[in-house]
């Protein structure tokens, strides 16, 4: 390397010599520089990010891979069932009802009380055109021991057909309401909810 430098052109040789000349530093400059470096915070975040982004290889036996995959799928299925088990949440149902006051008064829903006396029933619900005939949608409550089951349901003005479902399987009509004709499914009870202007 030095032989090659010796053989360079004079102009180039001067540049090389200048570059090799020791730089004269002010007294204490080295200490100040080191002090400034020490004061600089260590780049921990970058190191952590680099560690996380660094590619790695994992080795799993096929059986463990399959078990892991099945576990992830199971978590997804169970979560989905738990979320959708009870249909719309109480908040969602409340939101629907809360939106109703924006309707004209004649179309706004009215709270209707359904009552059935069924002392032997373990559970009673009301089904009809207002809840898609879903026996789990509108369960009735009983207070005390006289077997009186009640529930309040917001209903829009109009003609509604409904029945009570006792213990999830027996459909019965309301003894205190008019009947609709039997159309092959059995008679239903009829309820006429009048709007304020009707």
């Amino acid at each position, binding site marked *: 390397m030095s032989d090659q430098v010796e053989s360079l052109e004079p102009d180039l040789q001067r540049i090389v010599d200048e570059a090799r000349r020791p730089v004269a530093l002010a007294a204490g400059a080295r200490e100040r520089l080191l002090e400034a470096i020490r004061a600089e915070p260590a780049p921990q975040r970058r190191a952590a990010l680099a560690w996380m982004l660094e590619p790695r290889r994992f080795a799993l036996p096929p059986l463990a891979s399959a078990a892991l995959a099945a576990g992830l799928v199971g978590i997804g299925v169970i979560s989905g069932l738990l979320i959708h088990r009870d249909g719309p949440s109480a908040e969602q149902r409340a939101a629907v009802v809360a939106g109703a006051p924006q309707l004209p008064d004649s179309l706004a829903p009215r709270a209707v009380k359904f009552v059935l006396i069924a002392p032997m029933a373990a559970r009673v619900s009301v089904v009809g055109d207002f809840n898609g005939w879903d026996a789990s949608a509108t369960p009735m409550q009983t207070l005390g021991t006289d077997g009186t089951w009640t529930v309040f349901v917001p209903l829009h003005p109009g*003609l509604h057909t409904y029945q009570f479902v006792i213990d999830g399987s027996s459909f019965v009509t309301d003894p205190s309401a008019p009947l609709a004709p039997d159309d092959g499914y059995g008679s239903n009870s009829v309820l006429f909810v009048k709007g304020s202007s009707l």
Partner: protein
Amino acid sequence: MKILSWRLCALMLALLLPASTRAQDETSARTLDPLSRLDPAYRYAVEVLLDSARLAGLPTNPIESKALEGIAKNRNGRQIVIATRDVYRSLVRSRAALGPSATAAELTAGANALRVGITSVELAHMASTRGAGKELTMPLVVLSDLVTRGVARDTASQTIFQLWQKGAADEDFLGLWRGVERDIVSGTDPGVALMNRAREVPTRGPAPTTPPGARSENPETQNQ
């Protein structure tokens, strides 16, 4: 070996994940789209009826409700389609009899009345004598109930029509129904119970006219 293991894992996820999401979709679809529980062919038939009703300006709720009621009561698809078709046809006839100004509740009540044997002519006559602001729904509901409980069709039809002509209010019809229902439970003949209770309803309007097609004999004897 390692690469093979990861590929196997990815393959299983690809196969199983759609199955799990499909299960969730079916659960939520049942809530948001109750008709999804119907077999596609029967569902299509019900949706055609719903579309037809919508286009004709008829209420769709009675048709959809009948389909959902059938599903809830475990009826098969064929029975559900037959029942919904009957509701649709009754609504069409009800609209023709009651006129375009009839409310959805009146059309539904009229459809029920037609299904218990009340004629279109009788319905049309009741509608033609309707005063301003008067609803036919409650009289028709009571009329259908009375026939369903065993009152002769002609007796029920003429009595309700006469009360309607006299200007009876919804509360009068409801009171009449309660009284008749109580009497029937007590063992009174349905026709007799109706005639007795009808006399108690106060007169509020003009004298009754005979509806078209009404028989000339005494209605009290028709239920014997």
